[in-house]
């Protein structure tokens, strides 16, 4: 039944720094995450390193491939950076997956990191804005939060969701983060607090938005023939897919349909030979609450226009029909942009290998959606034990 293919590929170790407002620089946060995997695998076995980082504007640093190789004690390895704004982390994993599946390397490491909090909110907003279309959106000063806000406005208009429904996503994810000691924000919030928080881009408010965070995460991928040298519970990568959409949401025929996510998910379900109802656990890109709802629909967890009802009915709470963002999501675990995609994978790895402590759910098949821009680059991974 199982397709025992020599090109199969497994996650054998994952590490993550504490996410938050950190005093250290980005590379020090990488070392913190790396130390967690260095106890599990033999670091010298790592043949290649792929690093996801959003922007050099935070630390005036590029060349992260060589820099990480240097700090990990892995000079002379193949090492380079990949970029797709907030999708950079999962894209680094996709690259490691390709390297191992192709047979080019037996062990590869994906790294994601970002050190953002040394800049103020306006500077961060400006840096993130380079992910949008220069002419259509940047010249009009249409920020990334405003693009998500315009999706939210249209979604509410078309399907009858209310601002309170968006806030329910934030409340759920804050609740989950209470049980995640590495989360940026460990504070319970209410719908009322969310509704009363100050506007960022109406109808989205501060508590609809992921915080600005520092953090790093690493994921080590190994081929079928070596994976069990490192662990008795390797997590299999059943699918790793990427799809692309326009940078500006204005150029999409159907505003509220995250088409690239749907496309990457369709490819992933096909690769994994699974359907949406087989998935028990998901980490999805809730940079703004509206996006978690849009992704429910794109992943096939709810019919079109009814994603907000999953939040309303508690179906995506921890232990619900599908546990979504048990880590706290971008919203409360935090959103160190380049690290986020791998922070999602870290959570799924902890859950599938039963190391998630107080937030442990019963799951053996999971999906992760990491995206960059405004669902412009979508990266989907399906993982299983």
């Amino acid at each position, binding site marked *: 039944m199982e397709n025992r293919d020599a090109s199969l590929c497994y996650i054998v170790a994952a590490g993550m720094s504490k996410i938050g407002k950190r005093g250290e620089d980005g590379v020090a946060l990488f070392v913190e995450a790396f130390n967690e995997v260095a106890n599990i695998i033999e670091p010298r076995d790592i043949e290649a390193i792929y690093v996801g980082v959003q922007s050099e504007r935070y630390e005036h640093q590029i060349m992260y491939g060589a820099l990480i190789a240097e700090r990990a004690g892995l000079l002379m390895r193949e090492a380079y950076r990949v970029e797709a704004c907030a999708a950079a982390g999962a894209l680094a994993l996709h690259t490691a997956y390709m390297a191992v599946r192709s047979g080019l390397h037996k062990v590869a490491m994906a790294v994601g990191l970002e050190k953002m909090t040394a800049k103020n909110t306006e*500077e961060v*907003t400006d840096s993130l804005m380079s992910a949008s279309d220069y002419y259509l959106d940047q010249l*009009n*000063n*249409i920020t990334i939060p405003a693009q998500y*806000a315009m999706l939210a406005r249209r979604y509410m208009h078309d399907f009858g969701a209310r601002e309170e429904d968006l806030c329910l996503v934030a409340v759920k994810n804050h609740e989950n983060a209470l049980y995640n000691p590495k989360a940026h924000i460990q504070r319970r919030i209410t719908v009322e607090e969310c509704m009363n928080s100050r506007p960022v881009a109406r*109808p989205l408010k501060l508590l609809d938005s992921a915080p600005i965070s520092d953090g790093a995460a690493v994921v080590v991928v190994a081929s079928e023939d070596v994976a069990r040298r490192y662990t008795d519970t390797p997590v299999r990568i059943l699918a790793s897919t990427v799809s692309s959409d326009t940078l*500006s949401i204005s150029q999409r*025929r159907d505003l509220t349909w995250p088409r690239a996510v749907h496309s990457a998910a369709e490819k992933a379900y096909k690769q994994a030979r699974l359907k949406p109802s087989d998935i028990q656990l998901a980490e999805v890109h809730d940079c703004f609450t509206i996006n978690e709802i849009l992704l429910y629909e794109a992943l096939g967890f709810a019919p079109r226009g009814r994603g907000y009802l999953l939040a309303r009915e508690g179906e995506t709470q921890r232990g619900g029909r599908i546990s979504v963002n048990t880590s706290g999501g971008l919203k409360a675990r935090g959103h160190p942009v380049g690290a986020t995609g791998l922070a999602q994978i870290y959570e799924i790895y902890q859950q599938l290998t039963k190391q998630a402590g107080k937030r442990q759910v019963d799951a053996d098949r999971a999906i992760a959606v990491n995206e960059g821009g405004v669902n412009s680059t979508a990266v989907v991974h399906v993982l299983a034990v």
Partner: protein
Amino acid sequence: MSSEFLAALCEGRILASRCSKCGSCSLPPRQRCPECGAETGYMELPHRGRIITYSEIHVSSKAETPYVVAIAELGEARLPGVVRNARYEDIEIGDEVEVVIEKRAGENPPRCWYFFRLTKQKR
């Protein structure tokens, strides 16, 4: 082809591209259709259209806040922009806007740009 879009703006025209094969329209105009890869032709857009969505921005490094932005459907194409004469509460999806083209201040290009004016009467 963004340069053609900018040059046309200074002549008071809004230039998009339309796919010769699937009919899909794009802004700014581009040589190949994003949907199917076929060659496109130019198409001029009307200066009036309807708002399909909007927001009011409260956090920005680029301009004094708050300001209202929207995406307007102009014929077959969709253009985002700033709505100068309205607050969030004034707008509903489906409202009509007019594109106003003006010379742009400062030394950095582009020389001409545009904004939206909500044309309906205030309720």
